[in-house]
């Protein structure tokens, strides 16, 4: 469960992009490593190496941004996956990072460095 003395979300910024990808994937709801991999690959259009994914998952888990859930949603009943979900801290960090990116983009747009399309 979440640490009552949760650290400041801002201390995690900027997030490594793999971590951001994972948090975005988990923001959609509870998922396992393979599900996250699928989501990220579909969104980015390129492969995410499994070992990299699990390194990042381990890191996020250690830092308390995500936690493992004991529940096992049905996925054919054959599941031996570990399921992860965003912790409150994780949600806060994700919001903070997205806010940071948003501000970064605003900054760039104001200087004509980025167009509306991204």
């Amino acid at each position, binding site marked *: 469960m979440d640490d009552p003395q949760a650290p400041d979300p801002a201390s995690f910024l900027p997030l490594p992009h793999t971590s951001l990808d994972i948090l975005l994937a988990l923001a959609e709801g509870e998922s396992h490593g393979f599900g996250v991999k699928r989501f990220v690959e579909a969104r980015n259009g390129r492969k995410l190496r499994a070992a990299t994914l699990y390194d990042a998952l381990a890191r996020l888990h250690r830092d308390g941004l995500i936690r493992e859930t004991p529940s096992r949603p049905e996925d054919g009943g054959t599941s031996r*996956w570990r399921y992860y979900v965003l912790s409150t801290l994780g949600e806060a960090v994700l919001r903070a990072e997205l806010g940071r990116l948003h501000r970064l983009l605003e900054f760039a747009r104001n200087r004509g460095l980025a167009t509306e399309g991204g």
Partner: protein
Amino acid sequence: MMIDALTRALLRLYPEPFRRRFGRELLQIWRAEGDEARAASRLAAARHWTSWCFVTLYDALLRHLRPDPSRPSVPADRGALFTLDWIRRDAAFALRSLGRRPVWTLSVAGTLALGLGASIAIFSVVHDSLLRPLPFDDAASLVVVEALAPESRRSILASYPAYRSYRDAQEGLEGLDAWTTQHATVDLGDGPSRRWTATASSGLLRTLRVDPFLGRGFSAEDDRVGQAPVALISHRLWAEEMGRLSKGRGGAGDDGILGRTITVDEVQHTVVGVLPPGLAYPDGEVDLWLPLGGAPRGRGFYYLSMLGRLEDGVTPQQLTARFASFGPTMPNGPVDSPIDLVATPMRENLVGDLRPQLSLFLAAVATVLLIACLNATHLILIRALGRRRELALRAALGAGRGPLLRQLVVEGCALGLLGGILGTALAFGILEGLRSLGPEWMPRPEELGLDGTALAFAFGLSLALGALLGAATAVRATADDPSLGMTGARGEVGGGQRSRAALIVVQLAGAVVLLSTALLLVSSYRSIESRESGFDPGGTLMVDLDLPAGRYGTRQEQGAYYAQLLEELRSLPGVTAAAVASSHPFTFYINHGIELDGGQDDNTLASRVRLVSDGYPETTGLTVLEGRFVEERDGWNAVVVNATLARRLAPGGSAVGLRIKLRNIEPETWRTVVGVVADVEHYGRRAHWQHAMYVPAQGVPYPHPMTPLLRTEGDPLALGPSIRERILAVDPRVPAGTLVPLDDLLWRSKSEPRLRTTLLGGFGALALVLAMTGLYGVMAFWVADRGKEFGVRQALGANRAGIVGMVLLHALGRVGLGVGLGLALTWPALALVRHQIPDLAPAEPTLQGTAVLLLALTALLACWIPARRAAGVDPITALREE
């Protein structure tokens, strides 16, 4: 699956904590993505697998170098791996440089392909027979239980009472089941057809741990006599039937077959279940399972094979020992004879006596591969030496030895893979050839072929071999002082002399050993071919015919049918003789204990029995050695024995006139031996009988289905249509099955020795050719290398003959050493082969000697051509080259 195991092994490369935490999920991801890739295309699957390998290697290495994954570091997703990148660059360079020398490249790859192709084909055979797991849950605990005949220690089938008593007395098995197979005429409602049928005790499916695809398996009630007959049908038959009914894809879950009534040998059976697809026991051909309830229960019928599943913690050896403790007996007339029951693991039973042959093939193929590799090494070495100047220059300019080595290794890999591709094509050809030679001897012939594992083996072996060759030659080629290469001096590569001599010696020795072994098998096969087969199969045809037991149940009904059938067939123009017998000349279905009048009470004396009609010796050309053959009117009074049984009954004397009794036949009567016939030779691995007896069909109280045999003039198969017509004329409901010339049966019965002879002969010839090309190459190179020396010698007055002699003398030493070593190794090798395959005929020393002599002469011829060239060197040119 092998790929799966490999992947799991690869995962072990990860550091322990990482693996413990995520290994299982990584594997699951790999499997899931692999399934998708396979569904997409073969190429995608291959790409998935290779990229997985590389990524795993790379990631694992990275995690060892940087054990704390939580520390953010090098962003790991950065496009192409640098490792892949340099491999790609070196590979591209290697391909370009190989492409510039297509002839050389093809000779090396072709040489490797010969060795690799043979290896891949044999690996595939060995894998199919020995390594691939049997398709049953916990197959290791399945054991085949066999009864051993007291004297010959050969396995015999069990009768129903015997099976019952073994089953009830055994301990240590979860259950003991029995089965037999035979043909049956089956009608599913679309007319009768012949189907291969298993009759099995109710527990067999449970013992195999196989669930029915639809419906239920047999229950214990089905085993009882007098139950309403039920049947299980194969998945194949079910699919056929569904296809017939719906003229398309069978509707999912359409199980309308259950409860249907089908006719099996004129008896109505209810279908209660469908077997799962691909069930490979008792064999893959079975279309129908019937319960044991309706099978013969008499003490005299030995027809059941037995299968059991070991209880946890019991070994086959312990089980065999437990069998001994309950003292099993073979119900055998008034006295039950003690018997040994032996349990062997199912796989052992399938492949047991095939193992020596397969080891022989493996050894032979390894020798061929070794010789091919030595040839390739020499070719690569020559080329590397030719490039010494280039290599030396690069080294002098500061190129490290490492990159040079690496490049040669990559080049070796490319050559290996090229050879592997050619070799795989060759392996396909070899396997196709094996199939046409008749793979009946294989435990699962239907599975013979190159599967994923064999291809993975081919890939791995080619790559490993290529890398090894590349590395070996690279080390040799770059070992010398670069300054030597820079001078471009010739004749100073003497360092390679000794290794090249060793090359020749090893190659020749290998070729001699392989050739001698092949010749041993050839002479053995020749002796089989020339041996009297005891009968004359020419022009005789066997008709596959099943008399429905429902309509022709009694001996009288059957007898009447066969009598009429023979009358019809004999009247056919072109048929010179016809007979019916309880089995064709290569097999027996009946076995009886024998009691000899005035002989000792001997429970172990038994013989195979063939029931015959009049005309049997004329039809099959069976040689009568002494006395006369039995006739129908002899009835219960006379029998004829084969030479082996005659020797056993009357050692040293004549068996004619002796009186014997067949056990288990009521009433027991004394029968006189009226004649002795030749033994009919059997060559198959599973041909275990020796004693044989011929009894008139009317000489036993039980009915037995008979096989019609016809002797014809000219091409027997040309009579096929009219034969079928006549058979239908007797009873339109009894169609003839296949017509098989006895010649074909004889040919098939020799398939095993023929196959091993062909294979070994082929490998021997291959080894010979490879060794000769190798020898030629080495000598040609030696001569070219010393061209200057020959020029100088000529300039100093040496004559041509002297130079040819000198070269030959030089070669003779090496050839002599190689052949000598080969001969020295031949004797232990032959002894080993003989030990493994005991039924080989003796070797023919003259044949062996001639072959070795020829080999030596060919070897000298291979040297003579370069020697001539040496003598042809123009002194001026040679000196000018300086």
